[in-house]
């Protein structure tokens, strides 16, 4: 079977929109009666006013800062964000808190299963099937990461190997021992596993991994291809978050990601005013309404994820709207010497054209009145001195073309830069004021 839910995945676009607007009105009614945040925020709004996608713009966006304020209310710890009786909550999750106090997210049995159902679409699209023995090389904890993947794979009928309590070499040996043939990981950790495998004389492609689903950080196409080459497997991407859930995933065409409709009503709005739905091929901010999760109602949540709007058609036959690419987080975009800079561009250049670079780090700092941007790059240990020097110059040239910025490139000794398990922190802005 090609689709997880053939009915939903091939509905005509007009039907999907009609269903989503109907679900949106239901969720709006529910939120207004069950969530303190929306009782206050939407008190003058009637669900019946929302008849078209254009009508959505009558409603304000929800952002994290106001969520933090309402979280401080009773009942502890979810406050005015809770959409159900506290005693119905079965799981606590939280955001990482990188931009402020973490948001605590309550899930009931029902809401969790709703999330899992949406996730099943992501895994099924990525070709995960009951014959897959899925290795999860992470410790699960208060963050949502990998819990959803675990339960969705189980629901699909896969066999799960939780590989949390091991170091990377231990995980590599466990993958071989149990003949795992699928994996879920961050792109960064996928590259790290490959590097570690090579260091102990194991070719990553001999691990037997057929399918890999990546999560947790934007994955440039060059990184996805590099993982495919290293592991000799199919690599897929998806996007989501703790608050809005996982909302889009990649199909076999590996060309952008399908929004999981009608689970989510996704608007992609212009980043200047957050008012206009952008055109196909244009960058916008993803604004998400999960349409069936009642434990934690969210209406028009501003994810601050920058994406490029994709096509509405796909060779796979699915009819859902696609996003072409995840550009990064609004928070990660910086102005350096007046130029808008995204760290993802650097990763794209390195993964595509510099396989001899094992790890890297970008640092922006202010010296006097000048912004200085530095790339610390760690070459492969077998590179000769002259090759390192040549690589350094080529990096400077390629980065200048790609970013319009002159980088100070420093080649570091092998093994000197940090390696990451979950989300990589390869970008550091040391300036006091972030323009």
């Amino acid at each position: 079977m090609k689709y997880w839910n053939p009915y939903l995945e091939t509905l005509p676009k007009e039907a999907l929109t009609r269903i989503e607007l109907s679900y949106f009105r239901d969720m709006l009614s529910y939120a207004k009666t069950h969530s303190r945040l929306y009782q206050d925020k939407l008190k003058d709004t009637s669900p019946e006013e929302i008849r078209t996608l254009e009508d959505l713009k009558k409603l304000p966006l929800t952002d994290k800062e106001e969520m933090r304020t309402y979280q401080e209310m009773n009942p502890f710890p979810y406050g005015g964000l809770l959409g159900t009786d506290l005693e119905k909550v079965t799981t606590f999750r939280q955001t990482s808190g990188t931009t402020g106090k973490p948001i605590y997210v309550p899930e009931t049995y029902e809401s969790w299963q709703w999330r899992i159902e949406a996730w099943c679409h992501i895994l099924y699209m990525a070709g995960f099937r009951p014959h897959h023995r899925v290795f999860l090389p992470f410790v699960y904890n208060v963050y949502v990461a990998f819990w959803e993947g675990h339960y969705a794979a189980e629901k699909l009928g896969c066999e799960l190997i939780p590989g949390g309590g091991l170091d990377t070499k231990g995980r590599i040996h466990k993958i071989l021992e149990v003949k795992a043939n699928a994996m879920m990981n961050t792109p960064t950790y996928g590259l790290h596993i490959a590097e570690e495998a090579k260091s102990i004389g194991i070719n990553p492609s001999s691990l037997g991994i057929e399918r890999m689903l990546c999560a947790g950080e934007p994955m440039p196409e060059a990184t996805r291809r590099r993982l495919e080459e290293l592991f000799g497997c199919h690599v897929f991407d998806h996007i989501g978050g703790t608050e809005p859930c996982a909302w889009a995933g990649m199909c076999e065409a590996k060309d952008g990601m399908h929004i999981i409709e009608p689970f989510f009503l996704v608007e992609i709005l212009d980043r200047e005013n957050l008012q206009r739905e952008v055109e196909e091929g244009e960058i916008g901010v993803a604004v998400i309404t999960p349409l069936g999760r009642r434990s934690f109602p969210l209406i028009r949540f501003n994810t601050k994820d920058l994406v490029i709007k994709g096509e509405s058609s796909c060779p796979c036959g699915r009819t859902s709207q696609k996003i072409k690419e995840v550009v990064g987080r609004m928070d990660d975009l910086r102005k350096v010497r007046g130029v808008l800079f995204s760290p993802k561009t650097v990763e794209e250049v390195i993964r595509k054209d510099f396989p001899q670079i094992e790890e890297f780090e970008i640092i922006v700092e202010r010296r006097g009145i000048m912004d200085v941007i530095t790339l610390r790059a760690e070459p492969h240990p077998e590179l000769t001195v002259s090759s390192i020097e040549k690589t350094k110059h080529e990096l400077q040239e390629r980065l200048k073309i790609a970013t319009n910025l002159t980088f100070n490139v420093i080649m570091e000794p092998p093994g000197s830069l940090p390696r990451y398990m979950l989300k990589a922190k390869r970008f550091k802005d040391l300036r006091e004021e972030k323009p």
Partner: protein
Amino acid sequence: MNEQIREEIKRIEESALRLQALAKENPALVRNAEIILSFVYILKFITPKG
């Protein structure tokens, strides 16, 4: 989507509600019926009228 499928989901819901009412002194039965209702919610969500 076949209307018969929606009818069948409705019957599961009614059956789970009856089970809850019949077994209200038995936490195991009540909770398991409640879990069936969680899945009924999802079944309804994924079978909307086109």
